[in-house]
């Protein structure tokens, strides 16, 4: 086989492989992705088997044994609060008023059942809000 033909064959094989892999990639990504939703969207859609990636602001939380239960509202703070039930690692920055991302589904009883260890808390913005708080603060004297 002359080198030119060999080269063309190699090129065709390589391109076909690349195309096949790209198609596999694209196909699996659309089926493996979890949609991002805000609490108001999830509430509006009602209970279902669909898994969502919920993004919102934490309002109120308490521990219930090994579970963490908290209410989550839309990022702008408004709208109805969605109760979330979560087990697993609670990231250190988790606090009321912080933005979180958690994956799970809306249960029949209206609670968002979260997947284990899926809670992500965004690092707090270092600007304005922290420094604008009360300038007087507690100093411990040993």
């Amino acid at each position, binding site marked *: 086989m002359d*080198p030119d033909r060999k*080269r063309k064959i190699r090129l065709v094989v*390589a391109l076909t492989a*690349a195309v096949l*892999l790209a198609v596999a*990639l*694209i196909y*699996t*990504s*659309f089926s*493996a*992705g*979890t*949609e*991002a939703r805000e609490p108001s969207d999830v509430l509006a859609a009602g209970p279902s088997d669909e898994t969502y*990636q919920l*993004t919102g602001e934490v309002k109120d939380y*308490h*521990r219930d*044994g*090994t579970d963490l239960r908290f209410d989550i509202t839309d990022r702008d703070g408004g709208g109805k609060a969605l109760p979330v039930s979560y*087990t*697993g*690692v*609670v*990231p*250190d*920055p988790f*606090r009321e008023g912080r933005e979180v*991302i958690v*994956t799970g589904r809306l249960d029949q009883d209206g609670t968002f059942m979260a997947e284990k*260890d899926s809670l*992500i*808390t*965004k*690092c*707090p*913005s*270092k*600007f304005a809000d*922290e*420094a604008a*708080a*009360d*300038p*007087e*603060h*507690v*100093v*411990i*004297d*040993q």
Partner: protein
Amino acid sequence: MSALGSAALIAALVVAVYAAVAALIGTRGDRRWVVSARRAIYAMCGLILVAVIAIETLFVRTDLSVALVADHSSTTTPLLYKLTALWGSQAGSLMLWAFVLSIASAAVLYLTRNRHREVVPWATAVLAGVAVFFIGLMVAGIFFPGAESWPFAASDPVPPEGAGLTPLLRHPAMAMHPPMLYSGYVFFTIPFAFAIGALITRRLDASWIRSTRRFALVAWIFLSVGLALGARWSYSELGWGGYWAWDPVENAALIPWLTGTAFLHSIMVQERRGMLRVWNVSLICATFALSLLGTFLVRSGVLESIHAFGESKVGPPLLVLIGIVVIGSTILIASRLDSLRSERRLDSLFSREAIFLLNNVLLVGLAAVVAWGTFFPLISEAVTGESSSLAAPWFDRYATPLAIFLVLFMGIGPLVAWRRVTLAGLWRAIAAPLLATAVAAVVLALTIGVSESISAYLLFLVATFTIVAVVTEFWRGSVARRRLVGGSYVAALGSLLTRNRRRYGGYVVHVGLVLALFGIAASSSFQTSRDIRLSPGDQAQVGDYTVTYVKPTTTIDGTEQKLAFGALLDVTRDGRHVTTLSPSREYYSGEAADPNAPLRSFFEGEATSEVGKTESFSRDLWSAMQPDLSSFDRVIDAKDQRYADALSKLPGAEQSDPQVQAVIAQAQGQMVRQLADRYIVDPPPAEIRFNVNPFVVWFWLGVIVAVGGALFAIWPTPEGRRRRVSDVYGARLARELNRAR
């Protein structure tokens, strides 16, 4: 000081603009403008240095009249974190970028001051242009305060105390992580600038590569260290016990690392065979654009991520610059395609060139996969209207097989020769590694089994293959050298290494990366992890280990305003004591404290996990805990209530009396001590996560070995030896040349 820094930065912008213009004028041939532009870059470097010294002085002095200091530092912040707080902010990151860029630009222009007469002026213009962008973004912050990009902005009002550094970031690894990453990005700018110059002047031989090859390797080292530091911080500081989550910001630094690695290999093919010229210029332009994209992703809030700092005004200009770079490079490359095409072709598939080509395809393929997954929320939104994201399992599914193939070819590459290897020779080289792999296959199948994790099993096999292949390369090289020059094997090895730094340094890098991947595979696929709820005296079984909660621990730290509740854990195995771990949870009373509820303020402020771990070559024992403070709530509120009552009985005027303040502070201190004592006497149960991570330490060790290998490869051979070698060959060839004439 603030005035000096501001002035220096504004002057730097003017000088950078001049440098760009002068360099462009110099491209027409008048050397005076080229030399002037070079001096301008040196001056710009000096001016930015002045600005950096100014801002750091303000940090060290904790000058709260500067917004940057007030928002990211405080009087009680330790010195190291005062100095490194600069790059925790947007304005500080821009300054860091500009600073490293100016140093790198000055360095490369100095080193090439007598070379590449036609390319350097264009490269200078590009470097100056990028500098204008970053300094310009900062200076624009003066006129657009909402952008928060001006480092010397004044605080309004001046607070009595700074916000301090988030406790989560008070870790040496996190302190060095941003400068390492940014240095990586910046050092890729150098070969990019020279590539653009080479394209414009059509000087498309390998000269632009030769002068900037080392800068690309330095960039690679910085990026590798930066990525590893981020992973190390995550593992040592965060409560989830992992080191890589395929988070968008992590991926943003990984993608240019992958394309940069591909670039380092493919330029070797161009230097030797003149092939892959189009590929190389495209790859370096892409790597630079990806570095800008990495910077953009962290600061723009466009993707949901644990790191996203929210919408930032700096995002859109960065995106515009990326667009200009991508479109500009594409047009430039397309217009030079005729000069770039090479006539050379691959001699054989069994050659090092072919392996490098394959490795490039794998690396760029992996980069494309990671990029697709990272930007998928935006892609899916554009396609379906719904933003959908991909989690770690999807990335692992594609990254794992690609990584396995990469490790395999990291082993085959050293065994073949350039141009064409004799098959018999290849067989001789590959026999020992293949045998070792076969043995490993059987041993591993019998000990850990295949079905537990097929991908880990395969990775261990190819890792064995590659490490044995590299070791045999060292061995046979020494033998061959000794045959040539005699002496001992050790001396032969020594001279072999010093005369072939690039080759053997590269082999060491491969070994390091294989070790790192081994650590990753072993600790992910064979991890034992349990979440247990223990009270003092309780015991639990995690894998082979018995974990006993011995007793509670507390710490009070006045300087850091920190209260820590922890647990002492005793770990035994088969009855024998293995180690004692002390994980704890640290609560920081911060600026958001309520003066009427000092105790509650601790538990409303920042909290971090202090990881308790023991590392060894064979496994890490890792623990994090969180006490269940629900039973303490009553106690805390009761004490706070008593305190508030007592405080309210004091008339307002008296409250600001310093002596009274001192008594109040003492009272608060006493309350905290009482709470801590209560925790010891009547401790609540704790949620404990206990992980057994096999061989994870090899990840860190592997990175260190890889960086060591890269440093060895980069080290210049002394001028004398280089000349001697070339003289010998020159003489030999001259004889042949005369015969040919």
